């Protein structure tokens, strides 16, 4: 009896420790967001006179409107609106292409092995570890050669190519767990390469599509390096515009506008995560553990 009591007491202590730590970390991560949100709805006077974490006395949406519509970025005064749409126009095709090609790659590398396919896969995986700085110059030459320099389609191409290593890895590991007997059954039933892909493989691929789409959307949306190197002026994605907004020299540093713009730039990835997030953890582990 005393034994049981002692154990439950030490269990309680353990729980308090675990939850205490979790709460501490949650606060640590959430405080910056909190500061960003309250700062973005304060006016400049309040920011100058109040403390960092003081709640706004007279909340205003003016900084948000300015960040979105008429803040000065580089030489224009139209806010980040246009750049936001640039990012959308870049992300959607780049995510779609890299995901679809990755799916076909994964299908081939798991179900239609050929001589040297494992070597091919290993080499492709190296792509996950190559720092993007290494490829900047060759890529710039390639884009110039293709006539895609400083265009959104150029960025789409770059992101598609450099996303393939990851998307192929995701799909290949997912499809390895799909029984090959299914593919053989369909082959005997008379289905060919693409028919098997469309009718048999794709319908069971929802979780890994979600994972890949979230991953690629986040990666491409948040990319700064390719955006700053391969685009100028009106084709820049929102990450580059945000940087320019914050760095545009003017008489006063408008922290509230900067914060609002930063939150706007982060919203789409948050949105994607909330919509499809439940698939994320499930899909990431799907290839690793059978069942």
């Amino acid at each position, binding site marked *: 009896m005393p034994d049981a009591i002692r154990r439950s007491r030490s269990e309680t202590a353990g729980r308090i420790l675990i939850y205490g730590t979790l709460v501490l970390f949650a606060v640590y991560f959430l405080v910056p967001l909190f500061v960003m949100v309250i700062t973005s709805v304060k006016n400049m006077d309040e920011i100058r006179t109040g403390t960092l974490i003081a709640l706004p006395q007279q909340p205003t949406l003016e900084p948000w409107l300015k960040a979105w519509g008429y803040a000065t970025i580089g030489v224009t005064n139209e806010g980040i609106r246009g750049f936001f749409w640039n990012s959308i126009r870049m992300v959607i095709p780049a995510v779609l292409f890299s995901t679809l090609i990755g799916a076909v790659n994964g299908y081939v590398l798991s179900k239609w092995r050929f001589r040297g396919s494992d070597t091919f896969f290993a080499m492709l995986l190296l792509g996950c570890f190559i720092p993007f700085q290494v490829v900047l110059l060759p890529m710039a030459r390639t884009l110039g050669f293709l006539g895609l320099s400083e265009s959104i389609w150029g960025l789409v191409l770059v992101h598609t190519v450099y996303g393939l290593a990851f998307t192929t890895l995701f799909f290949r590991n997912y499809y390895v767990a799909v*029984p090959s007997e*299914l593919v*053989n*059954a369909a082959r*005997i*039933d008379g289905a060919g390469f693409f028919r098997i892909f469309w009718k048999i493989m794709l319908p069971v691929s929802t979780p890994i599509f979600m994972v890949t789409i979230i991953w690629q959307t986040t990666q491409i949306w948040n990319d700064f390096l390719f955006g700053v190197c391969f685009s100028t002026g009106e084709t820049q994605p929102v990450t580059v515009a945000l940087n320019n907004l914050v760095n545009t020299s003017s008489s006063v540093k408008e922290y509230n506008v900067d914060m609002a713009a930063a939150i706007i730039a982060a919203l789409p990835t948050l949105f994607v995560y909330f919509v499809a997030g439940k698939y994320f953890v499930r899909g990431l582990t799907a290839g690793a553990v059978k069942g």
Partner: protein
Amino acid sequence: MASLVIDNVTKAFGRVQVLKGIDIAVDAGEFLVLVGPSGCGKSTLLNLIAGLESITTGEIRMGDRVVNNIPPKDRDIAMVFQSYALYPNMNVRRNLSFGLETRKVPRAEIENRIQRVAEILQIENLLERKPSQLSGGQRQRVAMGRAIAREPLIFLFDEPLSNLDAKLRVEMRTEIKKLHQRLGTTIVYVTHDQIEAMTLADRIAIMKDGIVQQFDTPDGVYANPANLFVAGFIGSPAMNFIPVSLSRENGHLVAPLVTADGRRFTVPVPADTGALAPEREIIMGIRPENITDFQEGMQSWAHIAALECGVNVVEPTGPDTLVYTEVNQTQIVCRLCPDAAPKAGDTIRLAFDTTKPLFFEPGTGNRIEG
């Protein structure tokens, strides 16, 4: 329905020779079972017949058509897989129709066939369900239904019953046999279970290490095994193998047997051939049912030898009781009538049928014909 000829077929994966010259021929409508321990190459051979793997050398013919280079979809075969391989995203009806749609069978004909197959297999009420909503036995039926709906020349079964529980396996075994009698289509059936092989087959190919050890009817492989491996593989409990040293007594060649407590008796050996000669060490094979309880009147039967020995273990199975004893320092099992069953530690008188032993070379395992 088509005949199937496998002519000197080999298969190598890289340097590993998996099949080493397979020769099998069955007539149209026959039920062929490929049986053997895991790794013997039986599933590889089935994949070659299906066209899922390519043949290294040799030839496979269906009817009078060489199919070596014909892709699986054009071979007019249907296959039932061990895991059933039902398309998880389609309901049963779509599973049955998928192969017909890819072959552009007219819609009305597809409906007809699905209806008929569903009746044959009693799965009419499952047609709208997804595979995940079916039990193992139901999935098995749907997998067979998918093959039947195709109306192929040859059915291929890859260990179709090994994922079912014991009772269901026996039921489905009978159903497969009935189905074969009803459809009359040529079947190639792979299993590692010798009872399935015996009960289902018209002809059995017993394989080991990529070689067909024996290709014969079920009765043939049971009564006349070609070598030690076949003799030990077919039959349950397995045949007893007793090392004996032949000798000549009263002018006859005999195999002496000595029990654990030193009693000695002899089994006459049929002929004095070169292989069966005095002083030779050979292996004598005798099935458990050929050593049984000694009954009244057997003394006068010329082919029965009496054998008194101590009982080590007794295993009742219901219809028979298995009794383990020791001869020539080898454990042997005998099949007795339950009424006559002794207890462990008893000494019992057994009737040894001296017409039944088979003899094998110890080194090669080959059968020595008398």
